[in-house]
């Protein structure tokens, strides 16, 4: 039965989340809640300079402070495994610090207070070097060079050595396409770096025995990757390190890598004690992984009928102090919502004296979407066209050759646009100083390395063990899929996130993969249990296994002797499982492929105060194809969360660097994320065009919702104030200045 025709009993219901009560009562244990007997407290000394050579580090005074049990510098780290050199350098600087906040040394002490005192006693001699933090300045031929010798051979000439990577995508002939246009628009757009803004700072506790075997408890999106990275940085075997993930207070991509974890391990190794470290908010902002900042040149041609004739984008993405590939994920999806005959995008990766960027929901796509969708919106205004109709005219469908190469399978963009057009929001009247913005966005989604085990317990209840921290409600969704497949109530299933010693490797909770990939593996594990039960009952009933079917939560005999054998449900099977050969379990290990692409359409209404340039969001609607919403509450939560984060990126959030190259806004008072009182209710519409790559039709939904909001808000603000906004965030002074410009 296909996902389109399957009648679900559990899937699609708004069932209670298993972790809800724990999280609202404080029983849930987050990273900072993990303690051990005799535990020490770790603290990191960080660079006050954007770029400097470390001439010497004197740790003697810190070591002599009563209560200090270990002090480490880079000299205490082994040569890392191949491929982990940059990761180690980012966790603890070598001979140079590359950004404000780069770790230089660390201590472990018997109290937080002593640890804090001790790092003040460490004397570091720096030779300050020229720095660059701005993407436009960094590409100039005479810019200070962050790293020499990293430029890949395909980078065009004429830039500094900070432009380290080049990629391009597209098909057709854009020059011919631009000639066919009735209007051609060229603009340069800019976005600032933002942070994922997770509420829970990074936290980690680790211990290591004399045999170099270690245990770690950590707040992360992926403890298997944390294990692999720590092992790589510390030159250990992965099996020597067992990592357990705590509950997680947000990650959004920023907790798929290591920052403090190898440092904590090194402190635990040197001190011989368990060590715990919790980042401050200032450390989180200065020294974890924000997004890229960007400068983007875009050119779009359109004819009077609204057909896009050609698109071009040249994207410069500032990726921090180390080489990254994020710009590829701006260049590929920039124009993905459209069926285009002539399209070209170029991406250039630029390194600067800023922290190494990390993933943030659909990493790279939101800025590119902002630029592309802004240009299309402005052309609609210029040609007097309805932006919704223009998007419908040009929308990519199943069978469309995408702007980045592959031909799309069926997806729900057209359905999302139709739902947006039919939504009351689209036709609602606007008041004075208000504007309405529309944007479409795309993300790839993927599956990846996944292991799941499902156990039938003695009483017939079912335990699912999986290896992905539950960020968006995955324990409920996985339980629901297993319950659906086994034909049992949701309450009979409990899904737990297990440690790295109890299951095979899993990719992190990223790439919008968990409901798709872990769900797929859980369904297949449940099917393995069903097959095992059928085989055992066939043996007991002395019938052919093909005559034993699993239906509505019970095994039925369907052969010639029908009526001879009473159906047996899961609890009855569990009761005799030992007689039938022992415990019954199913497991599935796979590289889950077949994740369906995802599209979303956002409508935003904003009001701009002509006196101050302040923007308020009056109404916001998200429409997205979820394939099949397993638990609609969670899907809606993802859509709302992505929209809110995108609104913050569009209006408020930015990394502000001073002339000295140091971050100026290192707390939530100055780095302003939207709070509930800043926002209207975010309305949602779930479109369901099943993904043929999943038994229930699931598409990942976690990343796409952050792709369109930057553009939707910018288009709304531009229409509200009558001036095209090309520079994010659209802070009041910037908007006001644009309005006052002739």
């Amino acid at each position: 039965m296909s996902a389109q025709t399957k009648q679900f009993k559990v899937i699609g219901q708004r069932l209670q989340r298993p972790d809800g009560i724990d999280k609202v009562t404080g029983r849930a244990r987050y990273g900072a809640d993990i303690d051990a007997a005799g535990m020490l407290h770790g603290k990191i000394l960080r660079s006050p300079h954007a770029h400097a050579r470390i001439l010497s580090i004197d740790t003697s005074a810190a070591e002599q402070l009563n209560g200090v049990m270990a002090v480490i510098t880079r000299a205490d780290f082994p040569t890392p495994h191949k491929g982990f050199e940059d990761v180690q350098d980012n966790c603890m600087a070598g001979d140079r610090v590359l950004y404000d906040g780069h770790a230089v040394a660390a201590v472990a002490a018997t109290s937080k207070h002593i640890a804090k005192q001790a790092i003040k006693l460490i004397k570091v001699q720096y030779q300050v070097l020229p720095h660059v933090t701005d993407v436009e300045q960094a590409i100039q031929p005479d810019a200070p060079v962050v790293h020499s010798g990293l430029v890949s051979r395909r980078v065009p000439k004429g830039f500094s050595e900070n432009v380290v990577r080049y990629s391009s995508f597209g098909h057709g002939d854009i020059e011919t396409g631009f000639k066919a246009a009735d209007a051609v628009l060229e603009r340069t757009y800019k976005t600032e770096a933002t942070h994922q803004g997770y509420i829970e700072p990074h936290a980690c506790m680790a211990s290591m025995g004399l045999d170099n075997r270690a245990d770690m408890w950590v707040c992360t999106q992926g403890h298997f990757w944390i294990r692999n990275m720590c092992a790589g940085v510390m030159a250990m075997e992965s099996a020597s390190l067992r990592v357990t993930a705590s509950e997680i207070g947000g990650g959004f991509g920023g907790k798929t890598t290591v920052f403090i974890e190898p440092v904590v391990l090194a402190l635990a190794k040197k001190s011989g004690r368990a060590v715990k470290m919790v980042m401050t908010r200032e450390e989180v902002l200065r020294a974890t992984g924000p997004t890229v900042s960007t400068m983007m040149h875009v050119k779009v041609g359109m004819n009077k009928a609204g057909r896009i004739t050609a698109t071009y984008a040249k994207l410069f993405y500032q990726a921090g102090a180390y080489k990254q590939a994020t710009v590829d994920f701006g260049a590929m999806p920039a124009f993905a919502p459209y069926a285009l005959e002539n399209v070209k995008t170029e991406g250039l990766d630029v390194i600067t004296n800023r922290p190494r960027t990390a993933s943030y929901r659909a990493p790279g796509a939101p800025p590119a979407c902002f630029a592309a969708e802004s240009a299309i919106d402005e052309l609609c205004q210029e040609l007097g066209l309805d932006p919704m109709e223009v998007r419908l005219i040009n929308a990519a469908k199943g069978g469309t050759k995408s702007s980045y190469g592959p031909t799309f399978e069926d997806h729900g963009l057209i359905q999302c646009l139709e739902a947006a057009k039919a939504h009351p929001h689209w036709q609602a009247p606007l008041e004075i100083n208000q504007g309405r913005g529309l944007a479409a966005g795309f993300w790839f989604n993927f599956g990846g390395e996944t292991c799941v085990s499902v156990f039938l317990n003695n009483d017939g209840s079912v335990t699912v063990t999986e290896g992905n921290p539950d960020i968006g409600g995955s324990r409920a969704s996985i339980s629901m899929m297993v319950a659906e497949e086994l034909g049992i109530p949701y309450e009979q299933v409990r899904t737990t996130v297990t440690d790295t010693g109890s299951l095979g490797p899993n990719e992190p909770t990223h790439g919008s993969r968990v409901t798709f990939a872990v769900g797929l593996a859980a369904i297949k594990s449940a099917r393995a249990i069903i097959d095992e039960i059928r085989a055992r009952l066939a043996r007991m009933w002395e019938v052919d296994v093909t005559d034993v079917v699993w239906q509505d939560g019970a095994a039925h005999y369907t052969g010639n002797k029908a009526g001879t054998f009473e159906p047996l449900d899961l609890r009855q099977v569990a009761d005799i499982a030992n007689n039938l050969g022992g415990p019954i379990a199913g497991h599935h290990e796979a590289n889950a492929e077949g994740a369906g692409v995802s599209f979303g359409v956002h409508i935003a209404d904003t009001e701009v105060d002509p006196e101050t340039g302040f923007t308020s969001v009056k109404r916001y609607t998200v429409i997205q194809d979820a394939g099949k919403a397993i638990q609609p509450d969670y899907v809606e939560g993802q859509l709302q969360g992505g929209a809110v984060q995108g609104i913050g990126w569009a209006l408020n959030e930015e990394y502000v660097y001073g002339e000295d190259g140091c971050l100026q806004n290192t707390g939530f008072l100055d780095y302003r994320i939207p709070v509930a009182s800043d926002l209207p209710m975010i309305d949602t519409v779930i479109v369901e065009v099943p993904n043929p790559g999943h038994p229930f039709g699931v598409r990942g939904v976690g990343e796409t919702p952050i792709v369109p909001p930057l553009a939707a808000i910018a288009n709304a603000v531009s229409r509200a104030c009558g001036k095209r906004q090309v520079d994010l965030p659209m802070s009041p002074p910037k908007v006001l200045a644009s309005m006052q410009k002739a």
Partner: protein
Amino acid sequence: MAKIQIFGSLRDLFSGHDVVELDVSNLRQLLIKLPQLYPECAPEIAEGVSVSIDGKIINDAWFTPIRPDSEVVVLPRIVGG
């Protein structure tokens, strides 16, 4: 022969070709043959790529079949947040 589409800047690594025809029946064979025939692409392949086969993005599954009429596109390795 499967037709492998080479996009944008990657064409420089394939002697300027936008399509490369190869006698391969799965992803593993493709990833072995591409650098053999076009050594300039070897670092990119070693760094890790994603390959779209008939519209599905494949990161690692070597035995994903490639039919003679399959659409195959070599892409940068897809990640997520």
